[in-house]
């Protein structure tokens, strides 16, 4: 067993009384000192994983390990884990100081030690001087920081964050993303962050687990997940994408819209039907007759940073394109892309098989060179 893993799930299933399965045979490992994100739509089981780690609920089947010890039956108040709740769950009858000191008072710590630790935690989140404010006098962003201070003051091994930024407005949310990431680096402890916001996940995480319907669809670094989504769900959920049916003629050659294109994927059966992903920002607009595909613009929206256009090719596939060039509905254009912009996905491929295949064909590729 590797020492680095702080949390381990082995075949964990969670079923509620009404028989609905919210987690279906999930296994994964979490290493110490990293920023993890559980990403998925509502009802995917991400909050359930968080509550299992916190100890608010017990798994129906399977085992959960903390530093190599099984903790299935350990109650929440005996775990070295603290949570930052979605609506912060600050105690309204206590002021900022007492909220942060709550956990320390339960440990019956000395008064001077409590004062020292609370002021340290508050300065960590830039709230020094707010000790004697009531919670009702604090803004949303400030409450967020009190909730974080209340968690870190107990020096937990893991901090769980349950969609903590969802109640904040866009500007503040972006700012808090930087602050949380920075905080995690300074503290050096494991953060497990739950969100349904893929941008947030991509910006903050060392590792992302993409969940859907009680199963982990894919795990990996943000770049891996963005560039090499394992299936249609992940490709669709993370960022915007064009998912088009295709056929893998042979390794490194894929047929899209009736034409063969060179790509960088391989390891599939000859003529296997596949789906291909091309990100809208990877498609480049060319004058009519140039580029790899001929298309007609069917709709166009101004998004501020770029124009978003839907274009139809000769086969009837619709392509989403992000471009800074001004285009108009009805324009006939060419679309261009590079071989490495094409990502090929097999149908129903498990994460293990996917990883094995990628490893294999990248080896083949390097041998060929």
């Amino acid at each position, binding site marked *: 067993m590797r020492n680095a893993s702080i949390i381990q799930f082995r075949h964990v299933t969670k079923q509620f009384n009404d028989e609905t399965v919210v987690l279906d045979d999930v296994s994964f490992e979490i290493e110490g000192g990293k920023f993890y994100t559980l990403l998925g739509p509502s009802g995917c089981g991400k909050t359930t994983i968080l509550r299992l780690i916190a100890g*608010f609920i017990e798994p129906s089947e399977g085992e959960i390990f903390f530093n190599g010890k099984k903790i299935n039956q350990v109650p*929440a*108040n005996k775990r070295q884990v603290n949570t930052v709740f979605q609506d912060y769950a600050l105690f*309204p009858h206590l002021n900022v100081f007492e909220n942060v000191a709550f956990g320390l008072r339960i440990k019956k710590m000395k008064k001077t030690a409590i004062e020292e630790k609370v002021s340290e935690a508050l300065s960590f989140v830039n709230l020094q001087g707010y000790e004697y404010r*009531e919670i*009702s006098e604090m803004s949303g962003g400030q409450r967020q920081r009190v909730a974080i201070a209340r968690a870190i003051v107990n020096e937990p091994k893991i901090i769980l964050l349950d969609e903590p930024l969802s109640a904040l407005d866009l500007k503040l949310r972006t700012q808090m993303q930087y602050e949380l990431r920075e905080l995690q680096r300074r503290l050096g402890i494991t953060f497990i962050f739950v969100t349904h916001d893929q941008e947030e996940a991509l910006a903050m995480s060392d590792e992302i687990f993409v969940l859907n319907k009680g199963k982990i669809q894919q795990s990996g670094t943000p770049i891996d997940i963005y560039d090499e989504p394992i299936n249609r769900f992940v490709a669709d959920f993370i960022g915007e994408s064009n998912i088009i049916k295709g056929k893998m003629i042979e390794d490194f050659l894929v047929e899209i819209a009736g034409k063969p294109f060179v790509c960088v994927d391989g390891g599939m059966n000859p003529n296997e039907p596949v789906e291909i992903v091309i990100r809208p920002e990877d498609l480049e607009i060319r004058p009519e007759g140039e580029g790899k595909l001929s298309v007609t613009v069917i709709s166009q929206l101004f998004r501020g940073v770029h124009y978003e256009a839907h274009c139809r090719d000769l086969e009837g596939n619709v392509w989403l394109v992000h471009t800074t060039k001004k285009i108009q509905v009805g324009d006939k254009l060419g679309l261009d892309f590079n071989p490495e912009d094409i990502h090929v996905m097999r149908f129903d491929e498990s994460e293990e098989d996917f990883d094995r295949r990628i490893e294999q064909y990248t080896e083949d590729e390097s041998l060929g060179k």
Partner: protein
Amino acid sequence: MGNKFMRNVYMVPYMVWVLLFVIAPILLVLYYSFFDIHGNFSFINYERFFTPVYLKLTLSSFWYAFLITFISLLVAYPTAYLLTKTKHKRLWLLLIIVPSWVNLLLKAYAFIGIFGAYGAANNFLEWIGIGSRQLLFTDFSFVFVTVYIFIPFMILPIFNALNSLNPALLDAANDLGASKSTTFRRVIFPLTLDGVKTGCQVVFIPALSLFMITRLIAGNRVITLGTAIEQHFLVTQDWGMGSTIAVFLILIMFLIIWLTGFRKRGA
């Protein structure tokens, strides 16, 4: 402009009501309290209130009201807590509230039957071998029946306070290392204190001025401020003294409301 005018028009029935049935009676009571039994203007009633007879009466009134409130709270808090945990909590709450709609006198008469010498309570005591005893016209039966009558009024505000408690706060306390009892002491009870205060107000104040039950159940052995007022108006015909006691009762009520005053904290 027109809106404001209409709002004032809507206020008229309420204002008339308050004037006729709240302010006017209080002023009348105040007015009568300054006349002795012969109809002469004097402060004699106020002097008499501070004699041992009436001070003892006030003290015993307070003692019984305190006892009733305290026992009601002891029963009501756990009941309200259990109610919030049940599946059909609104239905259970309704079942507890419904008896409070039945006329108070009816319930008192029912208890005379139950606590009487040959009533159900004594039959039961006989059956378990303790033997029948005097139940009616005792302090026990008085406190028991009044607690029974007041309990829904204590449960309701406490239930509402418990029910509106954010469950995430309990998770948060648990997450920060608190056991169940610590969570109750440090989070649940402080956050439902407003409900407890309201419950105590709505039980303590009417308990101070109880009068019918003191006669029916306690057999006039317990004399409260309410009984004294009734006796002065209906038996001794000393309206002045009756009014004076009423004035003090009103003052005490305001004092209690002020002491247990609503101090809303947090959001």
